[in-house]
């Protein structure tokens, strides 16, 4: 899937963050791993900020989150609006034996996901 876009929602970033009592705002991507059935995954970030009482507070280094694909997407209860939507992507999506690279693009805005296991 070289071009997979998630349609934007209706929330501002303040709306998304304001609806969280205890959470993490995950920013930047640094590590990714998913099983061969594309179910269990774990992603890491370089930089994140704690969300406490609906506000961004302390910086956290190298936060990670892990879940099951179906559980994860069922836990989504808010997506950022079109003004927050942009194309992301990677130049080295690798597949196959021997390995081959593909350029991929993924459009998305920030999302809010409930009850996700996080760590560092």
């Amino acid at each position, binding site marked *: 899937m070289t071009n997979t876009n998630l349609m934007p929602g209706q929330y501002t970033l303040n709306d998304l963050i304001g609806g969280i009592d205890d959470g993490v705002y995950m920013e930047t991507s640094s*590590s*990714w*791993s*998913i*099983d*061969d*059935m594309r*179910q*269990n995954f*774990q992603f*890491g970030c370089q930089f994140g900020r704690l969300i406490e009482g609906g506000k961004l507070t302390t910086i956290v280094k*190298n936060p*990670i989150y*892990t879940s099951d694909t179906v559980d994860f997407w069922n836990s989504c209860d808010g997506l950022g609006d079109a003004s927050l939507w942009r194309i992301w992507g990677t130049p080295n999506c690798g597949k196959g*034996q*021997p*390995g081959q690279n593909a350029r991929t693009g993924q459009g998305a805005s920030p999302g809010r996901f409930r009850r996700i296991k996080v760590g560092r």
Partner: protein
Amino acid sequence: MSDVIDLLHKAISKSPAEQTELVREAEEFFLTRFAENVIHQNMGRSDSTIWCRAINGRKIGIARTNELRYDSIIKTILRAHEISLLSPEDAQLTGFRKSPKASPSRGFHESTALCPPAARAEAVGKIVGIAERNALSAAGMYQTSTTSLAVVNSLGTVQEDRVAEARLSLTMTGSEGRAGFAQAFSRDVTRIDVEALAEAACRKAEKTSEPAALSPGKYTVILDPEAVADFLLFLGFLGFAGKGMVSKRSFMADKIGSRIMSELVSVYEDPDDDEMAYMPFDYEGVPRKKVALVENGIARGAVYDNYYASVMSLESTGNALQPGNSFGPYPKAMSMLPGKFPLADLISRANRAIWITHFWYLNYVNPMQTTVTGTTRDGTFLVENGKVTRRLKDMRIQQSMLEAFNNIEAVSVERRVVPKYGALMRVPTLLIKDFNCTAVV
């Protein structure tokens, strides 16, 4: 002197740059892919690339072409020269070197270079026959290739040689998620025992009990060579590479001479190893050297190209990658020394352990702590009282590799060469305690 060297010499003599280097790599690559017990792809690829690096003062320019005509090479030299003049100065650039002639390659076998498509198809036929007799489905790939490399620079370096290689990897799958993986590498295709490899994959995919799900936690594990090689490759990327030593982004920086792993671990960059027989010089024409990376658990060193060696006031170890890469030098032929336990003894020593035959999708979590995550795949088993008792559901792992290599309890006598990307690793099976399994997949 070959026609290629003649051509490079003739072209380099026309360079207006103060120093010039030409590298020519040629590849003959053949591949058969199969899935669901059927060959679905046969392909061959023949390609050559010529890189030019031109140095003027402390400025360097790099250009490349895959047009091999003399006038195209001259254009590439002029482009590299022009790029160098437009580039910023690099105060650490010290220029090219004259390297001594490397020893002749021991990694070329005509049996591999001339292996016909019919031989690959016949091998896949044997694999499919074994799969069908075991009510399994085989998928994988069989590839043979020959790589020729020539390096000439205006300081007098002249190197030219070639290596061949054969790789076979296959997965047998059955109902209820049963799967078994096996792979082989050899410079000499006739040394790959296709039937034995297919039978080994079948045994891992045998129908036994329903797979059990273990709770997340710390377990003793047995890592097959394929799993050990995954860890070693990441350690190579993260720690044994000269660029990381210079920037201090390597876990080895400031640790040379210190104990970082179990004393059971010794790892060398050993390009002249009998089984790996790597190309005897690198992309700068520097002969590859044997380098102690870890000896008896003590950090000893890393691998370098001319640039990063110069910054560290060291000599190149002959580990330059292709010109223009952003990675810096990497180890390419790592050898982990064997232990004293036959494989069967190593399994019988385990009271309760997870036997991991293969990792999937490893990625780093914290490079300086050497923490990686990934899952097991294609054969995960429970060992109880020294015997393999049942299949397990795959598990996600999150583990510091240094911590794991510090927790080694036994190392096997037997070793295998495992190819991964452009690197080879000759590694044993390991018994490791307190290995962190974080979730059932």
